[in-house]
């Protein structure tokens, strides 16, 4: 590892996207932490701006990557790779060469939307919680989170992938713990332990893959490499079918928990309810997508036969998540909890979409990741604002929100409508794509998810009726207000929500905006063409 490699490493835009926020955040936190009290106060505001401008810089970088490329790539091609296959085997981009870990990043049509979404959401979360207490840490943690998330999406080395995967837990753990609600400690621990425990199974799967990666990397301890591209391109990767199934299932445990799918979803409501607004926005917006992303990247791409073999399992998982999640939503009295369960419900659609094995279904599932990544942060921003201004999340604790906080109600309505799959909003595109494919693959079973859409509409409308509307004569305020005058959202919150709302509509009307649906569908088609077509029943 000589200097030129280092330069090459950091000269790569993806490397910069990953490491700049991480190191930036750590530096800023240290800077703030090491200063004395007086200087700390002075520094608070500049640090916040630096954080924010770094986040914006990241967004600009990601956007410019998107503007330069159309992402109509051939299968298995990654852009902006920092090193090629030969170099990986040689070990010239090695991180821990002795066990075959290299710094290998790349981006393709599957990861770009996620990266862009991450860079988009982080500044928005910062805006929404612009005045967070101890903002220097808060925003830095968000920035750290951004680096870790992008790292998950761009790393093509499974070791590094796993490291980033777990690294995302740490800032989120602290976000929940330090800025969360009343029961934050329980929620944070549960979140951490639950998802960690699940991802450990994924790690087991990764290790089996690692030892069956036929690409030899002579000169290290194991002669193996964690490189995903090598695995993807190798023939005879894991010969024993049964072992492939084992790996597939191990990884499914990890990804399904992250997604989350019933019955391993129960960390989510607690984490969401207790997390600060920005935390739950990111949690729902990007972190859940890690599960789907990982499943598509590793599970589907490397184990197509197993996908077919366990199709029924996926459908059952997806269907139960979808239906059961929606019904549980109906029984929730806590606004945020309801929204959290609605995420469970929507994530079920992703499994359904993938299980169809149709290009449309998979494209729909990917677009679901994206669309949900725009809409659910909006939902949580609204919930957070509600909690912030009304000090409660109880559905039905107040009436006539529209009277006191018209902007908040408007955003709530936009979010709710987007989430229940209203046409011309992003969620609908995904829903339609997934369900069409689902019908093509499984026929009448589509009635189950379709009827669930009614339940979805029911709980959303029900909660709106009990929050935004009614309250004729004397408007009813929650007792937690203690007679305070209710306010509308601040302009920070408003800005953030407005961006999200507008994007939700833009992507509903024109899903190809910024090439999104096109690239996703292209990726899905190539996946089907190259990988799934041979194994489809």
């Amino acid at each position, binding site marked *: 590892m000589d200097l030129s490699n280092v330069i090459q490493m950091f000269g790569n835009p993806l490397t910069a996207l990953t490491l700049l926020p991480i190191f930036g955040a750590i530096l800023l936190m240290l800077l703030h932490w090491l200063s004395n009290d007086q200087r700390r106060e002075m520094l608070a505001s500049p640090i916040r701006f630096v954080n924010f401008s770094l986040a914006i810089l990241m967004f600009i970088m990601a956007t410019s990557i998107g503007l330069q490329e159309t992402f109509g790539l051939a299968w298995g091609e990654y852009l902006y790779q920092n090193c090629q296959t030969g170099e990986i085997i040689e070990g010239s981009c090695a991180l821990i060469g002795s066990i075959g870990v290299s710094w290998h990043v790349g981006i393709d049509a599957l990861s770009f939307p996620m990266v862009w979404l991450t860079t988009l959401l982080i500044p928005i979360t910062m805006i929404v919680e612009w005045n967070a207490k101890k903002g220097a840490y808060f925003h830095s943690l968000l920035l750290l989170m951004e680096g870790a998330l992008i790292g998950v999406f761009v790393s093509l080395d499974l070791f590094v992938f796993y490291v980033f995967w777990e690294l995302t837990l740490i800032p989120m753990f602290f976000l929940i713990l330090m800025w969360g609600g009343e029961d934050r400690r329980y929620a944070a621990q549960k979140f951490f332990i639950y998802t960690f425990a699940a991802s450990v199974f994924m790690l087991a799967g990764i290790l089996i893959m690692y030892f069956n990666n036929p690409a030899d990397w002579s000169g290290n301890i194991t002669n193996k490499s964690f490189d995903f591209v090598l695995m993807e391109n190798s023939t005879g990767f894991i010969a024993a079918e049964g072992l492939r199934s084992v790996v597939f299932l191990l990884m499914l445990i990890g990804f399904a928990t992250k997604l989350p799918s019933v019955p391993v979803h129960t960390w989510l409501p607690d984490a969401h309810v207790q997390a600060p607004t920005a935390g739950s926005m990111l949690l729902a917006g990007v972190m859940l997508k890690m599960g789907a992303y990982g499943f598509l990247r590793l599970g589907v791409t490397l184990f197509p036969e197993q996908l077919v073999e366990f199709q029924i399992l996926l459908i059952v998982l997806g269907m139960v998540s979808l239906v059961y999640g929606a019904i*549980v939503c109906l029984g929730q009295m806590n606004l945020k909890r309801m929204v959290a369960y609605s995420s469970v419900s929507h994530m079920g659609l992703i499994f359904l979409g993938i299980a169809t094995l149709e290009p449309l279904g998979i494209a729909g599932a990917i677009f679901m990741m994206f669309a949900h990544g725009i809409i659910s942060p909006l939902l949580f921003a609204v919930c957070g604002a509600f909690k912030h201004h009304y000090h409660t999340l109880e559905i039905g604790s107040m009436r006539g929100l529209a009277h006191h906080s018209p902007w908040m109600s408007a955003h709530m309505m936009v979010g709710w409508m987007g989430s229940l799959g209203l046409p011309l909003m992003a969620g609908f595109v995904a829903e339609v794509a997934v369900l069409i494919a689902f019908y093509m693959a499984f026929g009448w079973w589509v009635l189950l998810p379709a009827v669930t859409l009614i339940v979805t509409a029911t709980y959303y409308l029900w909660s709106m009726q009990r929050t935004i*509307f009614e309250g004729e004569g004397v408007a009813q305020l929650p007792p937690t207000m203690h007679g305070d005058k209710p306010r509308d959202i601040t302009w920070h919150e408003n800005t953030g929500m407005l961006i999200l709302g507008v994007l939700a509509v833009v992507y509903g009307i024109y*899903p190809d905006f910024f090439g999104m649906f096109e690239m996703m569908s292209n990726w899905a088609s190539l996946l089907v063409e190259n990988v799934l077509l041979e194994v489809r029943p």
Partner: protein
Amino acid sequence: MGEHSKPEWNLLVPVLAMVSFPFIRHLLGYNPIDSAFLIVAVPLAIFPVILIIGQQYKGEDWWKHQLKEGGIVALAGLAITLSLTIWLIIEFLVHHAHFGDQGAVFDWITFDNIASDNTLTESVLSFGIWVDSISLTVLFVAAFLCFLICWFAIGYMTTDPINEDRNHRFFAEFVLFSMGMFGMVLADSFLWLFIFWEIMGLCSYLLIGFYWEKPSAAAAAKKAFLTTRVGDVFLMVGLFMLYDLYHSLDFAVIFGDPTLGGTIHGEDLQWPIIMMFIGCVGKSAQFPLHVWLPDAMEGPTPVSALIHAATMVNAGLYLVARMFPIFSEASFEGALSDVAMLIAWIGGITAFMAALIAFVANDIKRVLAYSTMSQLAYIFTGLGAACWLANEGYQKYALFAFGAAMFHLFNHAMAKAMLFMSSGSVIHEMHHAHDHAHGDGDEGDHHHFDPQDMRNMGGLASKMPVTSTAMMLGSMSIIGIPLIGGFWSKEGIVGQAWNVYLKGGEMILFPAILVLATAGMTGFYMSRMWFMTFAGKPKSDVVEYVHEETQWIKTPLVTLSIVTAFSGFLLACGHFVYWLSDPASEKGSHFMTDFFKHPFEAILYELEHAFLPEDNTLKIVGWTAILLSAGLGPFIAARMHGGHLSEGERAVPLTSWLIRYSGSVGHTDVGELAEGGLATALHNRLYIDDAYEWIISKTLIPLSAISAWIDKNLVDGVIKRIECGSQWASTQIRQLTTGKASDYLLMAALGTLVVIAILWGVI
């Protein structure tokens, strides 16, 4: 208040200016079809403008009075769409253009499908414009009525203090709603039809819940959305099925060759059509998804006029009409006749049921709502008949039935919009009059007084000449008084329904009887409404203070009165029915031209075919319908609710004859009947709503509660149990560390023995 309002014609200048928009486009070299997308785009662009500016500047004077809180902006936008629509129609008529599919305006999503030979084929779901006689008709209805209702709403909404500072929301949603309607009509694929369809659903939700602070309005909005959502979901499933068959949802593909090169059989299409029809049932408030419509009257009256008369409820009809080419595909013969019968049955049942409930409704808007349901059901019956005839190979009759049904759509929309606006006018004035009479301070009474209740009215004919005339004409059109509006179409529908029976569709007998009976019932309840409102003595002191006011309300009423009075006759005689069903046919291609050239022949021809069909049995049916609707129904209504006005009150000549008639036929008291079991059941809407509520409260709500419990205590409980269990195990296991060295030694010794035993045992 009316007496203060000055004429505000000057405000209309920008609106009028907008009418020039098509001309400018024309001068710029565009043709109307290229501009058609603007019909959708303009309202879409105006929506956020009104909303955001309104929210920001709602208190400002210029916004409030110059722009009427956005009303003028909306009206201007709708003027553009209306003029573009007219431009389009002119192009269509004058140049005999057959537009059909106009290609994609933009590709929505592009993706691949796996073809049967395991290769990938590209598929596009795109938005494009589709123009033909049906869409033009419905588009015109929508654009024209939206424009007028907006005009009306400016008068209606902005003068009511309760709406102060939030009318921008109304107008924005109104415009968005119009966008949805225009888009749905113009869309060239089922998918985009559905998308706009849902947008309308959203707007209907927002507009019904306009008075969100009223719990009843909020509940009604929710109910409307959810009920239509039920239908929509099935419609969506229908779309999926269609897509699976055709790998496209474009009209061009599906109607171009419904058999897709012989690969698709009629049986395949049964379920898709039934599924889509369920969507129509929801949207057009047919049994059993009709429950939302009466409650939807919680919205402001212009909304009722817009959604529940003119536009949204027509969407379901439009969709069924769109599927007509599938029914008339020759190779599907007989395969889809059961589906057609289903459509007719739903129509028949709803028509009868709604008319029945309308008998006892006392709320003026609810009467109209039930009437709407009933009339839409007529159209469904007609479409069902048309589809059956088409599918069984009776093309000629099928086209006639189809044309009649669509014509009824036109007539009903015009009349019902006007009726709603008139009722709005009545309610508006009653409300103001009540405030005037009792003062604003009289809170308690204010709450008990219902300005919509017809039992508080009576004798308004002299106070509101324009309104009463308009309402009379509208009612006549709905009832089907010969030669006026709905008469032309209704006769066709009833006749063709019976025609199906004669042609071998025995199953239609029941709906056919029902629609025939409903004709008479329509005569009764519409007349009842008019008489209760305008004839007889005032039933409350409020009536004294009622008077008509601003031009904003009167102008559309007058316009529509004229349209209702004459359009039916004119269009019918201009072979509108034939033009609708098949513009390329001999009669259809002579739309209006025959009428201008040989008016008498045309009239005779139409009379002959409308209510004097060739078949003698049908003649009997036709005459029976006329007799029931124009004679018996109004007669009974007049006996029960009619009467002379108070002393010194005079109605205008246009309505005075009717009041005289009602006063001269005597009086029947039906008090006993009104308290009977049937009436109670009808008051309770035949307990259908209650049944739904009961079912939901007994199934979904407990299920959700149980699921939430399960999730908390079982699924998550397992986790918690593991946690508690491991804490317990930890305590137990640490008890073994007693702190005494001898115990440790003992444990170690046992361990040693075990170690030796294991090692020994293995060898």
